[in-house]
């Protein structure tokens, strides 16, 4: 297993991401991961708030258009995340917190698909009050994304040290 992770880490691409001093390597990929987070989680939260009754006079149905941006942000983060993971495969994949993060993202994305199908798929949406089932999905969405962000951040504080050379974990 460790041998396999080491071989990922030693590929030319992974080494470049980790060790290049270029701003286009680790720093740019990390920036893209942040932009993706902002749009993916932020737009999900905006939809959740509307489902929960904020900005009630605004129709909910047109917000489905933002799913395109959300999916784009999701793929930016899946790809940038895969690159950051390859660069530090031996440390990140041995970090239990990483699996919490992946778990939260998995349930958050399933939740996002359920909102797309069950809430936006309802033909009488905006003609009748939002159902309690929809509100429950909005609440779980907010919880799962908060969990994903928290686990992602805490990866820098638990488990083996990773990240670009010179980036240090701060002992809390």
């Amino acid at each position, binding site marked *: 297993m460790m041998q396999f992770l080491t071989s990922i880490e030693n590929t030319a691409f992974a080494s470049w991401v980790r060790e290049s001093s270029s701003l286009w390597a680790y720093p740019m990929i990390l920036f893209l991961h942040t932009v993706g987070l902002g749009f993916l989680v932020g737009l*999900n939260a905006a939809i959740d708030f509307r489902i929960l009754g904020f*900005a009630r006079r*605004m129709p909910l149905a*047109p917000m489905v258009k933002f799913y395109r941006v959300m999916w784009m942000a999701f793929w930016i983060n899946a790809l940038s995340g895969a690159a950051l993971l390859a660069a530090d495969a031996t440390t990140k994949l041995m970090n239990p917190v990483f699996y919490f993060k992946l778990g939260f993202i998995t349930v958050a994305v399933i939740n996002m698909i359920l909102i797309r199908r069950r809430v936006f798929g309802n033909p009488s949406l905006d003609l009748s009050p939002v159902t309690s089932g929809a509100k429950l999905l909005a609440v779980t969405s907010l919880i799962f994304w*908060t969990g994903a*962000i928290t686990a992602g951040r805490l990866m820098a504080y638990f488990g083996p040290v990773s990240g*670009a050379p010179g980036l240090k974990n701060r002992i809390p």
Partner: protein
Amino acid sequence: MIQAFSTWLHSTRLSWAMAGGVPWLWPLCETLHFIGLALLMGIVSVLDLRMLGMAKELPLGPLQRLMPFAILGFTINLITGALFFTGDPTQYIHNVAFGFKLLFIGLAGVNVILFYVTGLYRRVDSVGAGHDVPAAAKVAAAASLFLWIGVMYWGRMLPFIGNAF
């Protein structure tokens, strides 16, 4: 003067607490900083993308009622950001990326202030479903997206262009 201020700041109990005196305070603030980022970016991008023509069926007036969440996100980040600075002022005051981050936040602030004082806010507020906002509002929306993404860029570059952490 900045040097003296940062030396004084570093001698406070709050600085000590942030810099490890209170275990897990720094990581907690970092996590909140990312949650605030998502709140701010989410609401700002919904508004800006709508003004730029996406999901045009959304009437702008009621949409602007989501703004308190953006303000909440900004406030969380202002407070946690100030706490990071307090915890370790020297890694920020000599940091080019930090200077640019503040500049971009300032420009984004000017953009918002202009949006209100020029009366653009009121004109946008009355734009209903299916209608375009005035061209000036589209410029403001594009500037807003550019500047906030820029803020994230400079924040991420703190350890790379600057020498923080």
